[in-house]
């Protein structure tokens, strides 16, 4: 059998599950369908740029960026600790780290709700000590907490995978040339780990930008991110045209940021997970 024949199932798969849906979304975003038939329109895109929706975009980007930054600040030292342990302990630690990811995403997030809610565990304990807490659930910070909790492994693992590949001799060479541990980190370890950092940022920023579950569960019914907005258009208001236009804009934003990150990684010979 010729090799290219074996590619057909995959081509078919891509056609049905990637190209056709994309084409449909593009179609819905620039055509309106009503009793008079189908006609071309840019009305959906114009609506995307109304202040109320721009504010949602802005808030989504802000929250995703904050979550990504926190993941980086927490994740980098964590990856370093994982990478520095000796081999037997290392695999155990990595497994412990990954196990929560095997649990259902919703279950994990609901667990946070029971911890944080008005009569939840944390409030009860603090009350016992006589501290009256403000509302823990349904705030912006709660949403950020949920994102950090859920997406932290996606930051740690790519950085970890780059760090363990750094040759120990290179670090010794730096030390040999007079570099104190701090300089070794600043001038050698960190620059060499950048491909992992950029992978990690992409892998956290994207789901954080598009999620609607975390914001719905931890942010409450009125906390709207782009994901929620798009969900509403398709499931509640049935305005598929506007929903598609939102999706297209979101996709463009992701493609641009990916492009920037990918170019950076090419310069650094890849690494990480991409």
């Amino acid at each position: 059998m010729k090799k290219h024949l074996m590619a057909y199932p995959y081509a078919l798969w891509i056609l049905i599950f990637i190209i056709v849906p994309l084409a449909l979304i593009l179609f819905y975003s620039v055509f309106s369908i009503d009793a008079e038939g189908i006609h071309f329109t840019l009305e959906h895109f114009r609506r995307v740029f109304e202040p109320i929706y721009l504010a949602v975009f802005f808030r989504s980007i802000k929250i995703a960026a904050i979550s990504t930054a926190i993941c980086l600040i927490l994740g980098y030292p964590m990856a370093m600790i994982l990478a520095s342990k000796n081999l037997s302990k290392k695999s155990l630690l990595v497994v412990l780290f990954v196990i929560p990811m095997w649990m259902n995403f919703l279950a994990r997030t609901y667990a946070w709700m029971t911890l944080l809610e008005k009569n939840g565990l944390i409030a009860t304990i603090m009350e016992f000590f006589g501290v009256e807490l403000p509302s823990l659930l349904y705030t912006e910070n709660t949403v950020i907490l949920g994102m950090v909790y859920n997406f932290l492994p996606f930051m740690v693992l790519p950085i970890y995978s780059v760090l363990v590949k750094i040759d120990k001799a290179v670090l010794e060479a730096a030390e040999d040339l007079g570099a104190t541990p701090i300089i070794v980190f600043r001038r050698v370890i960190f620059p060499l780990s950048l491909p992992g950092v950029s992978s990690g940022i992409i892998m956290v920023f994207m789901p954080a930008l598009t999620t609607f579950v975390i914001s719905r569960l931890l942010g409450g019914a009125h906390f709207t991110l782009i994901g929620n907005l798009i969900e509403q258009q398709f499931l509640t208001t049935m305005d598929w045209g506007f929903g598609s236009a939102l999706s297209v804009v979101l996709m463009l934003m992701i493609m641009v940021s990916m492009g920037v990150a990918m170019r950076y990684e090419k310069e650094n010979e890849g690494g990480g997970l991409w």
Partner: protein
Amino acid sequence: MHEEIIRLVNVSKSFDDQQVLQDINLSIGRNEFVTLLGPSGCGKTTTLRIIGGFEIADTGDVIFEGKKINNLPPYKRNLNTVFQRYALFTHMNVYENIAFGLKIKNMDKKDIDRKVKEVLRLVNLSGYEKREINSLSGGQQQRIAIARALVNEPQVLLLDEPLGALDLKLRKDMQLELKKIQQSLGITFIYVTHDQEEALTMSDTIVVMKDGRIQQIGTPQDIYNEPVNAFVADFIGESNIIDGVMVKDYYVEFAGSGFECVDKGFEPNENVDVVIRPEDIKLVPAEEGMIEGVVESVIFKGVHYEMIIYGRGLRWMVHSTMMEPVNTKVGMKITPYDIHIMKKVTEE
């Protein structure tokens, strides 16, 4: 003339219950080219790493210019290392690699430029400043690694099998170049290798190690001509090692007959190792030899032939520029001076 710069005193080290160094005592002089030589696992690299500060000795002292530096971290030691696999910084270009140590010392930019230029000329890579590390060949990377260490003007340069990854021709060239650099800069080189030829070519002093112990310290000539035991003899060049009995001073019995020799000071009738270099056995017509034998095999080695000769129940390796065909009867002649008697090494 032996002005000491580094001394190891009773240094021992073990990893996970495995003793890798036992009671190492070593004095290294200024401007000396010292080679630590031995088979893999003999502890030579560990010794170097203890001097460099990458390992801490369990017991014993490391003394540098009269001061104990046992626990001094590598970045505070006035010595530099050339690593086995170069360990260059792949995220920097050649210039940045070499300037790394100087920048840490906050040296003036102009001085750094000048020094980098000088050291690149020294390793024959002038004009390579802007090149990326991954665009260089193995030999060039090795030179950069050497330049990166030398530019800091260390008093001692540690080299951990630096030529191991190069091909034979390049290795020979680099050996001579390293020796030249060492002599012109006048700094101490401590060189680790398992290649006896490399050690003989370059060193002022060779330290032969085995199983974490020093076997012999001496000049290349000493080590080659007067090995202290059969291990050293065998490791430095080829040897015939034969069981013998030292009947009395200057008289040894092996291979079924008695021979005059130049060694003394053994117990009467002590069991010894008799070591004879293959090039020290002269081939003569069968009736004129001390030992008679038959040529079993001949291998052409370039300058000489290597022949295995079977005689008196033993196989003798003989190097000679004259070839005797297989199955020829030959006689072998050994002068007393070429018979080396060594105490049996008691294997633990």
